[in-house]
């Protein structure tokens, strides 16, 4: 059983309050997700984020195969972090931690995702060719959109997407 980890970092030239307001609002997920994925929130995003919140989405990551995705916001500390976990959806495991940290000139946004693909060994075999490139594409798109929305905060390691 292989559990994969995706780590992404991006620095944004905005205040921690502005970053939190944008990133903790599930409605903004559509803005930072590629259009072709047809990201649509079905329910659960009508309140400020809270632990126990269930959000239902439809996503179409590959071809025309629509996936229903149900996530629970399990942990929230305002202005610092929140965690979403898949309750129903395409992954065998999806545990996504979103961290924010104030740094000179803005904030460092860090994502750590632990995930497991379905279908056992077959899933692991296709992971490097389908799942990993797709996730990379989604995170690169998010990075580009956030740059367009908020700009760039230049530091030594101002952005990275790493798979382990």
């Amino acid at each position, binding site marked *: 059983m292989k559990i994969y980890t995706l780590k992404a970092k991006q620095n944004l*030239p905005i*205040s921690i309050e502005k970053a939190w307001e944008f990133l903790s609002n599930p409605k903004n997920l559509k803005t930072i997700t590629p259009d072709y994925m047809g990201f649509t929130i079905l329910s659960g995003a009508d309140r400020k984020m809270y632990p126990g919140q269930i959000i239902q989405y439809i996503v179409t990551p590959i071809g025309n195969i629509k996936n229903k995705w149900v996530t629970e916001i399990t942990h929230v500390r305002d202005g610092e972090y929140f965690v979403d976990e898949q309750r129903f959806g395409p992954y065998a495991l999806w545990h996504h931690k979103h961290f924010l940290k104030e740094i000179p*000139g*803005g904030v460092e946004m860090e994502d750590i995702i632990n995930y497991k693909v379905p279908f056992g060994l077959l899933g692991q075999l296709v992971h490097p060719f389908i799942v990993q490139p797709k996730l990379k594409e989604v995170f690169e798109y998010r990075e580009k959109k956030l*740059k367009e929305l908020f700009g*760039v905060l*230049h530091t030594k390691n101002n952005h990275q997407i790493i798979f382990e």
Partner: protein
Amino acid sequence: MEHYVTEFCEIELYTQYVIITINEDVNFTLNEASIIRDKLRSYYKSNDFIMISHRKYHYDFSSEVYKKGQLNNMKGLAIVSSSDTERDKAIIEQPLYGKSFTFFSTIEEAKSWAESFF
């Protein structure tokens, strides 16, 4: 604070940031950039600062100004405008500048951002 008015712009020099407002319909080239750079060198010497470009008016500029003669101690650039057109232009300019770059609709937001560096 030091304040200068040239034939093509207004320059307000503060300890941590400079606010530059280019006049209407100026053709901003390397020559104009060089005049501003001299003022910045003289005021900031080796101290770090942020540049705030207050785009109150429309003007044309050459992308060469981003490529040549940037000061090492200029740590970031904020574009300020309430116009969507200027914001769209800023998104195009962003890759030309290799350091911190952002845009605001008010000068107060830009000052606050500049101060957050120090």
